[in-house]
C-alpha cells in the first residue's frame, strides 16, 4: 500500500517535471518563431535572394588586394597597438580599486559602497567600447585619445569583475593571520591579498589586452583612431581592394596578439 502510494507520488512528480521541461522548450520555440516573424517584417526579400549574386560581384571586386597600400598602414597599426595597450593600462589602474570595493571580503561597506562598485562594473561591461568611442569622439574630438579612454572604460568592468571574484576566493585564514600580527588594513591587502591574486591579475590583464587589440581595430569607424580609420575611408570610396588588404592586416594582428597572450599566460601559470 505504502509502496504503491510512493510510486504514484513519484510518477506524478516526474510527470510534472516532464511537463515543465516540455513547456520550457515549447515556449522557447514559440518565442523564436514570434521573434522571427517580427524581425523579418520589414525585410526586403528581394535583396536576400539577390545576395549570392551580390556576393560574387563583391568578391570579384575585392581581389586581388592592393598589397602596396600596406605602406600607409604602419602608422595606423602603431596607433591601434597604442590604443589597446594604453587603454588596457588605464582600465586596469581604474579597475584595481573598484575590484577591492566590490569584493565582499574587502569592501568597506556591503550596503553602500559595494552596490556602487557593482553598478560601475555592470555599466562598463554592458556598453561596448565602440559606443564609448562614439560618445567620446563627440566630447574630445576625433583621435586616439578618445580610443584609449573608450578601451579603458570598457576594460574596467571586465577586469574588475574577474578580479573581485578572485579576491573573494582567496584563503581567508592567511588574511586573518596577517591581521592578527597587528597589521593595518593596507598592510593586510599588500601582504595577504595581493600576493594571492597577483597571478590571476596578470593573466586577466593580458587576456583583456588581447581582446582590446581586437576591439581597437574597429574604433576608427567612429573616428577614434587606428586602422579602423583607414577601413572607414576605403569603404566610403568603395576601394574594395584596399578594404581586403586592411581586413587581412586586421586578421593577422588579431592572430599575433592571440598567440602572444596565450604564450605569456602559459608562462605565468
Amino acid at each position, binding site marked *: 500500500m505504502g509502496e504503491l502510494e510512493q510510486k504514484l507520488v513519484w510518477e506524478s512528480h516526474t510527470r510534472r517535471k516532464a511537463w515543465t521541461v516540455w513547456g520550457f522548450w515549447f515556449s522557447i520555440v514559440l518565442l523564436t518563431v514570434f521573434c522571427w516573424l517580427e524581425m523579418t517584417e520589414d525585410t526586403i526579400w528581394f535583396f536576400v535572394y539577390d545576395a549570392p549574386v551580390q556576393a560574387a560581384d563583391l568578391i570579384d571586386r575585392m581581389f586581388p588586394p592592393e598589397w602596396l597600400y600596406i605602406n600607409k598602414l604602419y602608422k595606423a597599426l602603431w596607433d591601434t597597438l597604442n590604443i589597446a595597450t594604453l587603454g588596457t593600462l588605464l582600465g586596469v589602474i581604474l579597475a584595481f580599486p573598484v575590484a577591492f570595493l566590490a569584493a565582499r571580503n574587502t569592501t568597506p561597506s556591503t550596503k553602500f559602497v559595494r552596490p556602487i562598485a557593482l553598478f560601475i562594473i555592470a555599466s562598463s561591461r554592458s556598453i561596448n567600447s565602440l559606443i564609448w568611442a562614439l560618445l567620446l569622439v563627440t566630447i574630445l574630438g576625433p583621435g586616439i585619445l578618445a580610443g584609449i579612454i573608450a578601451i579603458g572604460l570598457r576594460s574596467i568592468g571586465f577586469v574588475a569583475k574577474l578580479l573581485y571574484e578572485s579576491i573573494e576566493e582567496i584563503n581567508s585564514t592567511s588574511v586573518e593571520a596577517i591581521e592578527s*600580527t597587528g*597589521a593595518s588594513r593596507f598592510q593586510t591587502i599588500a601582504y595577504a591579498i595581493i*600576493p594571492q591574486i597577483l597571478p590571476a591579475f596578470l593573466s586577466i590583464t593580458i587576456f583583456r589586452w588581447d581582446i582590446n587589440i581586437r576591439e581597437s581595430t574597429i574604433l576608427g569607424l567612429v573616428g577614434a583612431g587606428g586602422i579602423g580609420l583607414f577601413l572607414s575611408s576605403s569603404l566610403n570610396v568603395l576601394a574594395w581592394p584596399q578594404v581586403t588588404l586592411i581586413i587581412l592586416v586586421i586578421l593577422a594582428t588579431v592572430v599575433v596578439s592571440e598567440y602572444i597572450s596565450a604564450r605569456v599566460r602559459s608562462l605565468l601559470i
Partner: protein
Amino acid sequence: MLKIEHLKKRYKSGPWVLKDISFEVPDGEIVGLIGPSGAGKSTMIRCVNRLIDPSEGNIQLDDVSLSSLSSSKIREQRRHIGMIFQEYALVERLSVMENVLSGRLGYLSFWRSFLRRYPQEDIDNAFEYLDRVGLIDHANKRADELSGGQRQRVGIARALAQDPRLLLVDEPTASLDPKTSRQIMRLIQSICREKALSAIINIHDVPLAMQFVDRIIGLQGGEVVFDGKPDELTEDVLTRIYGDEDWTDVKPDDEDDEQESEEAA
C-alpha cells in the same frame, strides 16, 4: 598575566557560543583548551586578540583591557599577541622569510613594509627564529614549497617575530601526522619555556595536550567544565567534557615519546 572575566559571545541574535567564561593565565603558563567541536574553543581564543569581538565581559592583558579598545587601538595590542593557526595560514606565494617578517608589520609603516625595507634588527631576529625552528636553509624558498610540518614551523617563527607576550595557538596539529604533531608541540613548549611566554592552545588531541601543557581547561557548550592539572583529568572529567565513551586508550605514552626524542636528536 591574561585575565578573562565573564566573557560572553553570541553571533547576531543566535544562541550563546560562550556563556560566562572566566579564568586567568599567569605569565609563563601553557594552558590547553580542550572540548568537543563546537564547544567554542576557536571563538574563545579569537576573542582574545579581537579577530572576533566579544559580546560581553572583560579581557585584560597585563594592564590593558583588550575588550574595550577601539578597532584602531587594538592593532597596537595585537603585536604583543602571537597567533599560530591550524592550516598554518601562511601567505603561500611569499617567501618563507617574508612570512616570518610579516610578524613585524604592526611595528612598521605601510611604505617600509611594502618596499620590504625592514630594520636590520628585525632581519637578524628573523634569521635567528628561522634557525630556532630549523629552517634557516629555506629562507628564500616560497612557502608553498614546504611540507606541512615545515609550514607550521614558519608559522611559529612568524609568531615569535612579533616578540609576543602571549601565544594563541589554534589546533596546531590538526593537519599534521602524529610524529610531526609531537615535534611541533615540543617546539612550542620549549619556546614558551625559554621566553617565559604564556600560551593558550586549542587542541582536540587529549593525550598530546596532557603531555605538553601545564594546565587544562575543558570547554563544553560554551562553559568551563574543568580547570586543573593534566593528571587530574580523569575518565569522569573526560565524560563530562566529551560525553560517554571508553577512555582507557587515552593515556600519554611516555616510552614512545623518549624514543622519538632520540630520533630527533
